[in-house]
């Protein structure tokens, strides 16, 4: 009995009847035949006692066995035939439905028979190519493959076929309008229900858009790479642990190494030890909050020299904000750095000069004004005590001359006036009043007096010389003066002794002298004249010390103490003497 014919169309969802119906359709006829055979055989074999046939039992039994065997064999053959017919019908229905559904897919679907001949291409393929199914089946599909892709396709296709393995193809297919678009085909082997190889089921997907995008990206990357490689600036990328992941040609040229020698290694050796902290600080600061940092540091280039680089470093983050890499663009700024340093040093020198100039001007103003004030003081001092204008003029002239000598001496030296030279110069101005050799002797270590002290000391010595010429040792042709100084054993400064020696026959004191004595060996200040007041005042104010006068049998002795610490004293081991005039 044939199973009930069933028609499957693309809009049907049921492809197989229920189990009961299938059983009924397939096996009802063979079953009935088997039952009839069993019944007949049973009758012949005398299973039913009511049978009263006249046939011999043995003959009936033989016929019964034969009937049973033949009947069951026929029923089995019938059932198997039914099953095969059912499978063919089901396959045809499945094929119809597969065809109908595959036509609905936007992708291209195709099947290949076990003999490598294409036997089906869906509507998408046919419409794309603008061809009929008959022209494409078999190996006709290769006709629309780009000529350059045919051999690779065929080779891959056949190779996979021999091995019964899935394969992928990448080829260009000609569209109905003659243009080629790129496709990716994936095919997998198919098997029948019995497990035998039944060919391949493949799908081809239009990847032109993606491929174009990839092309554009590749072109963009090529352009970018070209730009990067052509840059004169150094470009590199490195991972958070300081390992280089990319360098451009300029970077390689600068450090005299090939990219493969650099990538995968740290760049720390190329930075001087003392500047590595700059990179460490940059790495610590770079992040989402501070994505770009510019820094300057030194590098050791190919020839071993040290150059200055300015690097603009950027952090590269992933979508979660995690640091993936750093990228740096560097430029050699050695020339500008050197120029900048030179300019800065020049500016600093200029600023220092300007400051020094301002200080000098300020000090000059101060000294000029102070000297004028001192001159006014001198005039006031002498005006109160001198009788005549010539005396006043002489006194002022003498002090101004002393100041001039100090000025000359200080101008010729650096920062001070040598005490011995000062006395020598001042003695020189009195040479015409005290002719003869060896009249004045100085004895003491070399001392440089600061300008303020030198001026005061000059006026003191000038005053002492004036007095000596008028009333003291220098009046007598054999009179002599010794000025001796020494560094005191205790306390700061310097101790000086002005000692005049005159022969006993000379009258020592003149009642008109500034330093006239009152019969005692020491002069009370109130009894002194202007000269005494001046010497004592200068010793007290400028020298921060004191001065005392006494008459000894040999002549006037003036002891002066300088209380200011003198840093410029250069004391030889043994004081040296010098005869000045």
């Amino acid at each position, binding site marked *: 009995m044939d199973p009930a014919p069933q028609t499957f169309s693309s809009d049907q969802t049921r492809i197989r009847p229920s189990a009961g119906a299938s059983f009924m359709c397939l096996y009802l006829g063979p079953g009935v035949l088997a039952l009839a055979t069993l019944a007949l055989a049973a009758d012949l074999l005398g299973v039913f006692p009511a049978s009263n046939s006249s046939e011999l039992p043995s003959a009936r039994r033989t016929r019964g066995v034969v009937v049973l065997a033949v009947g069951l064999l026929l029923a089995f053959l019938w059932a198997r035939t039914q099953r095969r017919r059912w499978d063919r019908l089901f396959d045809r229905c499945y094929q119809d439905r597969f065809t109908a559904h595959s036509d609905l897919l936007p992708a291209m679907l195709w099947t290949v028979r076990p003999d490598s001949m294409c036997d089906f291409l869906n509507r998408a393929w046919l419409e794309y190519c603008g061809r009929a199914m008959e022209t494409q089946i078999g190996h006709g599909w290769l006709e629309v493959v780009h000529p350059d892709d045919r051999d690779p396709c065929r080779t891959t296709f056949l190779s996979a076929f021999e091995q019964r393995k899935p394969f992928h193809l990448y080829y260009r297919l000609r569209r109905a309008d003659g243009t080629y678009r790129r496709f990716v085909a994936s095919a997998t082997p198919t098997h029948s229900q019995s497990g035998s190889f039944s060919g391949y089921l493949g799908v081809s997907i239009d990847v032109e858009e993606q491929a174009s995008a990839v092309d554009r990206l590749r072109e963009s990357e090529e352009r970018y790479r070209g730009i990067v490689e052509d840059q004169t600036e150094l470009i590199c990328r490195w991972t958070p642990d300081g390992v280089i992941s990319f360098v451009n040609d300029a970077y390689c040229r600068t450090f005299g190494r090939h990219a493969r020698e650099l990538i995968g290694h740290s760049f720390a050796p190329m930075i001087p030890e003392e500047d590595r902290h700059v990179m460490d600080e940059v790495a610590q600061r770079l992040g989402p909050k501070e994505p770009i940092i510019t820094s300057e540091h030194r590098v050791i280039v190919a020839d071993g020299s040290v150059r200055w680089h300015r690097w603009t470093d950027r952090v590269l983050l992933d979508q979660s904000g995690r640091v993936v890499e750093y990228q740096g663009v560097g430029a050699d700024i050695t020339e500008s750095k050197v120029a900048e340093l030179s300019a800065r040093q020049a500016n600093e020198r200029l600023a220092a000069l300007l400051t020094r100039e*301002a200080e000098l001007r*300020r000090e000059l*103003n*101060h*000294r*000029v*004004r*102070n000297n*004028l*004030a*001192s*001159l*006014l*003081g*001198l005039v*006031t*001092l002498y005006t*109160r005590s001198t009788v005549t204008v010539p005396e006043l003029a002489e006194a002022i002239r003498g002090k101004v001359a002393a100041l001039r000598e100090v000025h000359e001496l200080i101008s010729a030296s650096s920062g001070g006036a040598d005490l011995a030279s000062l006395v020598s110069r001042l003695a020189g101005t009195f040479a015409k009043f005290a002719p003869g050799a060896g009249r004045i002797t100085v004895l003491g270590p070399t001392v440089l007096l600061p300008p303020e002290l030198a001026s*005061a000391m000059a006026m003191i010595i000038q005053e002492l010389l004036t007095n000596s010429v008028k009333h003291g040792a220098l009046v007598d042709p054999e009179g002599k003066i010794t000025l001796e100084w020494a560094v005191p054993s205790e306390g700061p400064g310097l101790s000086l002794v002005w000692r005049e020696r005159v022969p006993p026959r000379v009258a020592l004191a003149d009642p008109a002298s500034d330093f006239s004595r009152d019969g005692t060996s020491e002069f009370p200040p109130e009894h002194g004249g202007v000269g005494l007041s*001046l010497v004592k*005042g*200068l010793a*007290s*104010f*400028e020298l*921060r010390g004191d001065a005392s006068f006494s008459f000894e049998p040999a002549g006037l002795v003036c002891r002066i103490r300088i209380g200011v610490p003198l840093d410029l004293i250069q004391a030889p081991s043994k004081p040296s003497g010098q005869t000045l005039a």
Partner: protein
Amino acid sequence: MKVIDDHGTKKIILDSGRTVPDRPQRILVAEDEHLVAAEITARLTELGYVVVGPAVDGEAAIRLAHNGVPDLAILDVRMPGPDGVAVAKDLYATLGVPSIILSAYSDGPTLAAAREAGVFAYIIKPASLDQIRAAIEIAWDRYLDLMRARGERDELHRRLEERKFVESAKWILVDRKKMSEPDAMRALQKRARDTRTKLLDVCRDVIETGEF
């Protein structure tokens, strides 16, 4: 600040209690250069002032001022020890003595330091007699003006504090005795009159005890 007549000489009693003449008489001089010191001493003497000193350095100047407070001080800027600006600041802060700076420096920083120290005049060396006299007179007038203004300010401050005191006491009565503001004021004044005490003492008693 009060002006009194002391045997024909006008004297001014400052609010700080210090008594000064209507024009300075004793002037402290501090100058580390002998001739300049002699010059300024001579000039001041010529102008009729009594010179205290001259002090040879800043420490000596301060010591002399504390031994006998001068009316005014003329100080050199650059001296050993504390400089003139520091001495001026010290003398004004401790003794209320105004100062004049006498210096050969006229640069900005030195002037700024002098201004900050509150000196009352600045003379550039070498100074003439007229310059010294004018500087002294202007400095002294400025000093007296300042003292007068300071006295007025202190008086106003005191009155304001008293007013706050009276207001506090008055509002205590308004709050606790349910008096009107004028009645509370009148009650305080009446209590002062009745007890022959100062209004301020009555108010203090009200504030401290909370009772009336």
